[in-house]
């Protein structure tokens, strides 16, 4: 099983990278950009094959390490391995 975790900043939390990208896109003449946010994606190959157990394991990982839940949200997507 593969887990894809999207980690994004909570609304209201400062995002200097997102802001800088927005500015840079502007100066490259891309327009119509109303906002940019940058986050992380972490992909984990898991031995676990049961979806419920996998989700539980990954959300534990997020709470304990992968996300700083004071400032970040996470979202887990599970992708079963091609059998």
């Amino acid at each position, binding site marked *: 099983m593969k887990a894809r975790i999207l980690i994004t900043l909570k609304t*209201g*939390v*400062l*995002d*200097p*990278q997102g*802001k*800088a990208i927005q500015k840079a896109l502007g100066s490259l003449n891309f327009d119509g950009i109303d906002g940019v946010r940058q986050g*992380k994606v972490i992909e984990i190959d898991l031995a676990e094959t049961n979806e419920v157990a996998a989700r539980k394991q990954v959300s534990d990982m997020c709470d*304990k*390490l*992968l996300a*700083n839940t*004071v*400032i970040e949200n996470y979202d887990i997507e599970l992708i079963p391995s091609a059998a």
Partner: protein
Amino acid sequence: MKSAILVFPGTNRERDAADAIKLVSGKAPTMVWHQETDIPDVDLIVVPGGFSYGDYLRAGAIAARSPVIADLMKKAKSGITVLGICNGFQILTETGLLPGSLARNTGLDFLCHDVHMKVDNNQTRFSNKYAPGQIIRFPIAHHDGNYFADPDTLKKIEDAGQVVFRYCTPNGDISMQGNPNGSINNIAGLTNSDGNVMGLMPHPENLIDPLLGGTDGRIMFESLIGRAA
């Protein structure tokens, strides 16, 4: 004064901190490896600068989950003095011992240069040898020093006088001009609500000798000694 310095893989300013402490207190600190579960009984625990675990994932994140942290939390809660410098500050926010978090510098670049700071609170064990409102000059060397706290937390910090140092211009203006990294309210260093844990981004340990351009950093260590002598 007995002191200990925590060392994680990737820590790289532990020698600088040890030199500063030794110079001021006459006693070399004990180096404590991150795998250890007991920090010796000391008056001061320093979490030094560097790139613990390469700052991978988030600055300080992996270090904050090291075995040694449990005892650090325990000792901090019992009132032992804890000083986090640069990466140490980032680690302390990741453990929750200090509020808020440190984001990438607004300009996105790593920055190494001198900054000015105003002493906002000289009634702490870290700053009692500075004059109130004194303008001091420290070097910075960081990539993620942009202090952030949500409005409620920020209000609590400010109301309780937890801010110890603020970035300022050479003449003491607390403005964006004097703010190297975008920190909210120009916060460069702050304590926890009990006042025994402080984190700051600038490097007092690199300004302890006139030969190196000044001694403003030394005063912080002298403040700490004064208390624990």
